């Protein structure tokens, strides 16, 4: 009866038409049983288990009539269980608040009699917010999502598991061991940390391709409600849990770390769901059948607070998952509090579980959503292209040639920071420059940029060929990365224990060394035509024709002569500090450019941490050149970082001796073949100590024409918007120095205040052939126009603690 009513209402009101392909039925529970479902799953015999948050696990075999559903109690005594997996009939796993529990009916009488503690190797503080969810790992083990605590509740005098004072600070916090992490419980029972940075990942799912997915709730450090692709070792945005990451242990309280550093560490959410369509994500569910509509392989996400389910179309772009979201079901017939979805064996129905006790007015229970075979008219798939988007509808549309008039596109950014949610920042409208296709369609957009959320609205006048309109005709695409163009110069990275080798078009280009050195060094570098670009010394001590001066001039190296009392230009002095590689945050290759992003700690001569950096290096090439971009962000994590004014610093390179301007016979350099110039027309030795956009050393290397250009991006810090100051010598050393002595015409001393960061961007161009063919000026203009890596930090950022809005008010 209710189904017929719903269907007829569907024809009348478009608000209900979203269910015209899907019917919703309420599964009955006894009146006195609180159906506060934390997890729902089928066994292979078609029995549906539901774990209820007060403690019971109940079972039923769903029949045609939802009102006559009979539940039996299978197990009991569970503390707020929000995760359940069925291993076999009568054998389940439940993640309750304090424990991962295995529950077995050993004597097969229908009631569980054995409760095994699989793991309690994680902390629990006593706070109401710390619930846990689980999913399989595909290899006999599980992933467990451990929620953080909330400042709206207390912690105990006697919690379990290591307690961290620094982790306890903030709004949502991780006071006890591994809260806010996803941990891995392997098939042998060992629990290890897997990924950090979650707040309330209420649900975790593994898709058939082996990827792990979590949503997270709206909250502090979240712009909207994000969906994360959980990569091993990744940090997923919420800093409190970083207290349990040993790599960061010397860098200070995580919630007060420089925000740009956290932004660089952040494994950006694959999809940001906005308040328009999602309040807080429940557990993602992957559709693995053709029987539930035309969305096989896509993801459904229930809303813990709203009466709606989102549908996600995920794709992999430039090494990471991102994608489009749209509303799948949006109707008052759905309960709010949607947390879990389980599909039956036939694949025509999903069971949608709701509970909201504790975070809003209760809306508890189980509903069955069945596909009635009628294909809904909507966007079927939505992908990024190099110039815009490509999309398919589930049915042919009327007037496909007039489609461009029925689409409008806008975009905005979410700001990343400690605040609870973000408003839309930097809103832009995007003109559709071109629309091609009759299904699929491709649109080319003006102003396409990475790091933004695009919102594509389809007009209500857009109809399918049989006259249907779309419900909730809007798609949002989280464009973290642009699709890379085709290339003949594909890149490849090969990581070994001590570094990463970069190959372009199959030929070796550069090596990033991060082991056993006082700082990470890039050496060696081979230009196009396999021309050696750098001095071999001190790495190779027997290459002829090289002067063995300045052993600290090593390949491409980074450091200033004196920073907060420690020396980083040299490594061999008493006050010399070290730069310790902490982790590779991300590396990717295969496209037109390769990328390596790392986190490093800067320590003084006594090993005390004085700061950190995140650096992103990109590598690419064409017929005559290879380029190496460096974006380095210095972070004042523990204290102010003071760059004293010295000529020796900050990013340096020691070239092949053939590119020197002057020989040094007594040091073994008999003949040299280099000339130098800068962007301002100065030539030769005189470029030293002068300001310029770039410097260029060119000539022949081992008989072949070649050169090295070094660009400083116009946004790099200098006094009064001048160009960079160059410590560009005649014997092979070139460095760009933002902190050179003022009496030499430099920018002088600089301080990064604690909690702040400093960004510097440089590009090296290694070319073969004559200088004029390298078109250095043109290459510089391209570099200057390059917006760089997208960031979720809205500049400017004052110090600790930050208050962006109050700055704007001034």
């Amino acid at each position, binding site marked *: 009866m209710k189904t017929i009513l719903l269907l007829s209402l569907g024809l009348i009101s478009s608000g209900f038409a979203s269910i015209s392909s899907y019917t919703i039925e309420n599964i009955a529970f*006894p009146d*006195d*049983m*609180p159906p506060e479902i934390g997890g729902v799953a089928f066994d292979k015999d078609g029995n549906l288990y539901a774990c*209820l948050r*007060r*403690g*019971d696990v*109940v079972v039923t075999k769903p029949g045609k009539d939802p009102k006559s559903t009979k539940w039996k109690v299978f197990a009991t*005594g*569970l*503390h707020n269980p929000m995760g359940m997996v069925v291993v076999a009939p009568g054998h389940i796993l439940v993640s309750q*608040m*304090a424990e991962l*529990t295995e529950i077995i009916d050993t004597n097969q009488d229908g009631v*569980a*009699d*054995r*409760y*095994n*503690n699989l793991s*309690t190797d994680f*902390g*629990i503080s*006593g*706070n*109401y917010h710390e619930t846990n969810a689980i999913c399989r790992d595909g290899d006999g083990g599980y992933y467990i999502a451990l929620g953080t605590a909330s*400042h*709206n*509740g*207390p*912690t*105990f*005098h*006697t*919690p*379990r598991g290591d*307690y961290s*004072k620094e982790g*306890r600070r*903030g*709004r949502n*916090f991780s*006071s*006890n061991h591994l809260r806010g992490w996803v941990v891995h419980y392997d098939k042998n029972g060992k629990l290890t940390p897997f990924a950090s940075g979650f707040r309330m990942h209420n649900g975790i799912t593994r898709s058939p391709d082996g990827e792990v997915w979590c949503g997270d709730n709206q909250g502090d450090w979240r712009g909207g409600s994000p969906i994360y692709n959980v990569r091993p070792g990744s940090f997923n945005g919420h800093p409190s849990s970083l207290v349990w990451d040993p790599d960061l242990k010397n860098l200070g309280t995580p919630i007060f770390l420089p925000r740009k550093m956290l932004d660089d560490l952040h494994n950006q959410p694959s999809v940001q769901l906005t308040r328009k369509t999602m309040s807080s994500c429940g557990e993602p569910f992957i559709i693995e059948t053709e029987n539930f509509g035309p969305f096989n392989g896509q993801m459904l996400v229930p809303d813990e*607070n*709203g009466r709606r389910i989102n549908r996600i179309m995920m794709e992999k772009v430039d090494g990471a998952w991102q994608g489009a979201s749209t509303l799948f079901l949006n109707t008052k017939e759905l309960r*709010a509090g949607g947390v879990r979805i389980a599909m039956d064996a036939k694949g025509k129905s999903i069971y949608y579980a709701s509970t909201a*006790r*504790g*975070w*809003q*007015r*209760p*809306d508890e229970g189980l509903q069955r959503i069945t596909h009635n075979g009628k294909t809904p008219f909507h966007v079927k798939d939505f992908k990024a292209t190099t110039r815009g988007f490509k999309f398919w509808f589930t049915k042919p549309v009327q007037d496909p040639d007039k489609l461009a008039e029925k689409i409008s596109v806008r975009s905005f950014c979410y700001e990343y920071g*400690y*605040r*609870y949610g973000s408003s839309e920042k930097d809103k832009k409208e995007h003109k559709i420059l071109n629309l091609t296709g009759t299904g699929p369609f491709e649109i080319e957009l003006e102003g396409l940029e990475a790091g933004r959320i695009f919102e594509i609205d389809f007009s209500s006048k857009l109809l399918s060929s049989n006259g249907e309109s779309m419900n909730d005709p809007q798609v949002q695409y989280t464009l973290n990365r642009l699709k890379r163009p085709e290339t003949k110069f594909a890149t490849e990275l090969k990581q070994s224990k001590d570094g990463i080798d970069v190959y372009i078009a199959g030929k070796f280009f550069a090596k990033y060394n991060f082991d056993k050195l006082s700082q990470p060094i890039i050496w060696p570098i081979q230009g196009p035509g396999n021309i050696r670009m750098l001095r071999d010394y001190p790495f190779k001590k027997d290459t002829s024709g090289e002067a063995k001066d300045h052993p600290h001039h090593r390949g491409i190296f980074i450091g200033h002569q004196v920073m907060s009392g420690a020396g980083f230009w040299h490594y061999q002095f008493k006050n010399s500090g070290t730069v310790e590689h902490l982790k590779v945050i991300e590396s990717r290759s295969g496209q037109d450019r390769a990328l390596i992003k790392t986190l490093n700690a800067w320590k003084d001569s006594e090993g005390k941490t004085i700061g950190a950096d995140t650096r992103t290096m990109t590598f690419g090439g064409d017929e005559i050149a290879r380029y190496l971009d460096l974006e380095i962000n210095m972070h004042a994590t523990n204290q102010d970082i003071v760059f004293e004014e010295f000529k020796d610093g900050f990013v340096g390179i020691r070239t092949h001796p053939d590119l020197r301007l002057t020989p040094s016979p007594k040091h073994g350099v008999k003949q040299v073949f280099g000339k130098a110039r800068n962007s301002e027309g100065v030539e030769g030795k005189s470029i030293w100590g002068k300001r310029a956009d770039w410097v260029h050393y060119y000539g022949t290397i081992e008989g072949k024409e070649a050169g090295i250009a070094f660009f400083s991006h116009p946004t790099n810090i200098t006094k009064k918007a001048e160009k960079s100051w160059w410590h560009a010598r005649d014997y092979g050393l070139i460095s760009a120095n933002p902190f050179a002595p003022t009496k030499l015409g430099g920018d002088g001393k600089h301080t990064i205040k604690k909690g702040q960061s400093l960004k510097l961007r440089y590009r090296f161009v290694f070319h073969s052939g004559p200088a004029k063919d390298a078109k250095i000026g043109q290459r510089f203009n391209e570099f200057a126009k390059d917006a760089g890596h997208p960031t979720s930090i809205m500049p400017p950022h004052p110090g600790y*603690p*930050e208050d962006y809005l109050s700055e704007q008010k001034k």
Partner: protein
Amino acid sequence: MKIFLFPKLICAALALLVYGKKGSLLSANEHAPKPAYAQNGYLTFDLKPMGSIERPLVLRTFAPTLGLSKDLVLPNHSKGLSSPKYSPSSGKEATKQYRPIDGIPAAIAVNLGKPLSYVWDTTECRLLYAWTDGFFDMKNYWGDRNSGRRKGFGYVPRLHGFVFYKALGKHPLSINGKWISDIGSPKYSGYSLGSDRLPVYEFETGSSKVSIKIQPGPSTQTLRLDFSSENKEVLEFSSPSTQIEVKSKTAGKLSIVIRPNAGERFSSEEKKEPIKKPTTEIGEKLYTSLGCIACHSLDGGKNHGPTLKDSFGSKREFLKASSLVVDEAYIRESIENPMAKTVKGYLTGMMPPYKLQEAEYDSLILFIKSVR
């Protein structure tokens, strides 16, 4: 919804007749209605669930600490500390501190009706306390049926009944002459349920594997504990200020009866005195205890509900109703009947209605007016 009223408390003389072996139960309360759980075998909306001898109720929940010694009884727990209060809006910390509260995070509570309730802890692998005539009032955790909010800042159920045993001193078990506190941190393995549905707990310590079953003793306010060691080790039990009777002791097995070592009555009822005069202070206390704090910030920060900061006297726009200036009548309505108007930008139906004393509404209004 069936509501079972608890029978009157049984006096000790009758209790002596009642507690024999299971199956020979002579009961003065034979004809009294059984508590919901004992009847149905599932938890209901009853905030004071109770089991029975035939159907023990196993509940895992946070448990009250009951003043147990943290050093002697809870040594395998870690230590929670105070922490600076934090403003989510400004990202700054205040000088005020959050203080920890008492509670046991990972214990198992079992009730067999009025004859026995006990709490056994999985982190310490020992019995913490036992009581009669009640179990837990789960209101702090489960809230009430309509509003769904936990009632109170903490989440720890209230014990009601008569506590007759408390863990005193270090872990009372020794294995082959070595105390568990000297062997090392015990590791909880799980429990089995026999045909009597009573948990038998298992834990490991060093190279030993021990199981323990807890039942009512031969008379009221006594306990029977049966220990078993897999490797047939010699087991002994000792607790300060506690009378123990060893019933049997063989290779690898120990059965004892524990006599009361405590006598404390707990009531779960909060003394609810009617408020005479509404004040801002009372309003501020209610703001926390009723759970408003979970959705309405004081500092302008965003959350599920509008911030209270500068709300009084401000212009407010709604999804369906026409806009108005926030006054006392509106505040009263939005507490008593939040569905009447939903503020633009928020979801309808998230806030439950609150039925309070008149003076409580007035106190909340005074408090909200003061939030600037």
